[in-house]
């Protein structure tokens, strides 16, 4: 039976982890590769790097991070942030990423999703959706970290990008991101039920019950979280044991 996935996400800026990962005995909490190795050993099902490097000159730093991670971790790796062209995707895949997540570039040019899927296969194209609730039962796509509205309906957009070849959706509720009050379950379920591809729920995790809710009530096939893992509050193992007790199927290898 396929297991639901638990995915820690690291924000990486100029090749360094933002805010640092405060668990186990990391020699250098700011080194994304060390954190990746620790998560690999801890039983994470996948790892996600979000590159938030702002300056163009430093954009290559993520490639080195990905390359060194792929040398040391034998687990799937998704990389997103600033992916604008098929060359960006190719470079990340060649460095060792298994999947690449695209966001703003897909909002501005839907055809980019089709092009990416045709070139590299749907299995490595993740479309990231940042959505905000704008009316009861209606969510809109926002870009620029939730500051810029686009007027695009999130559910319709999710259907559109999967029809164009996206192999997975990474959905973040901008209302919940950083709040620690749990996923926006209505949003998650609305999109998970509307598409035929797997969906990763993100934004708002503050407790282990939230992870359970994302899968059980939100119908996500994977849950992504950052702070609850990075700051040593919960281990991956504790998260999975909690999910298992709630009747979800997880990998305990």
């Amino acid at each position, binding site marked *: *039976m*396929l*297991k*639901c*996935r638990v995915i820690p996400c690291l924000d990486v800026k100029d090749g360094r982890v933002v805010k640092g990962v405060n668990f186990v005995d990391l020699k250098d909490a700011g080194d994304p590769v060390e954190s990746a190795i620790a998560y*690999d050993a801890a039983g994470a*099902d996948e790892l996600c790097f979000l590159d938030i490097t702002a300056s163009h000159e430093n954009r290559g730093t993520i490639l080195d991070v990905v*390359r060194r991670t*792929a*040398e*040391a971790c*034998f*687990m*799937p790796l998704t990389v997103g942030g600033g992916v604008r062209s098929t060359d960006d995707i190719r470079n990340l*895949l*060649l*460095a*060792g*990423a*298994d999947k690449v997540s695209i966001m703003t570039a897909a909002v501005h040019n839907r055809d980019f999703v089709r092009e990416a899927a045709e070139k*590299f*296969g*749907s*299995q*490595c194209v993740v479309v990231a959706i940042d959505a905000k609730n704008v009316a009861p039962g209606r969510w809109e796509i926002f870009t620029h970290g939730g500051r810029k509205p686009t007027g695009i309906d999130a559910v319709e957009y999710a259907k559109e990008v999967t029809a164009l070849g996206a*192999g*997975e959706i990474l959905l973040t509720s901008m209302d919940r991101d950083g709040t620690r009050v749990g996923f926006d379950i209505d949003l998650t379920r609305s999109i998970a*039920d509307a*598409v*035929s*591809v*797997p*969906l990763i729920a993100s934004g708002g995790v503050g407790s282990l019950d939230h992870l359970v809710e994302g899968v059980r009530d939100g*119908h996500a*096939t*994977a849950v992504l979280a950052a702070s609850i893992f990075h700051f040593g509050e919960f281990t991956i193992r504790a998260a999975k044991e909690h999910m298992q007790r709630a009747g979800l199927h997880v*990998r305990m*290898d």
Partner: protein
Amino acid sequence: MSVVIVDYGSGNLHSAYKAFEKAAADAGMRVEVSSDAEVVRRADRVVLPGVGAFADCRHGLDSVPGMVEALEENVVRRGRPFLGICVGMQLLASRGLEHGVASGLGWIPGEVVAIEPQSPELKVPHMGWNTLAPHQEHALLRGIPTGDTGLHAYFVHSYHLKAADQSLVVATTDYGAELTAMVARDNIAGTQFHPEKSQKLGLALIANFLRWTP
């Protein structure tokens, strides 16, 4: 002893290389990634990876001068141990039906067909960690706990190989229906899952492959 990972333009071989290198170092073997048909022809063991669509991978393989012939000679005629991974495993089939019909190597008779989920909760691609249901014993699975309580393998695919001869299916995985997870015939084996991404199970399978004397 040399192990070659065939490079025919099918995506990233870096992690596959690193996983095999890790296992090969323990066995005193040398691993190289090569797009040179001569190197493949002379290798003691051959690994054929593959990501993307079947037809594209087939096209990529055909684009390397002499590569298909080198594989036929070294693997089929000379019987060197061979492992196909993901689309590299699917290419063993007679033909694939992804993005049009394309012929495979025909070493494992059968077709590569789309996964047809039995219920809307089952998403495609079949993506993530699943267990293996063994249909027979195989050297590559030796010492690896399988079955519902066994180790997990990492899958990501929308198509799977439907073997014409069920006796060549080594293991399946349960996704509403049975999907082919591993096939083998004589010195030829293939996994739909990614051993290089499958942590414990994957590294154990790779170590078994490097020791395999079919």
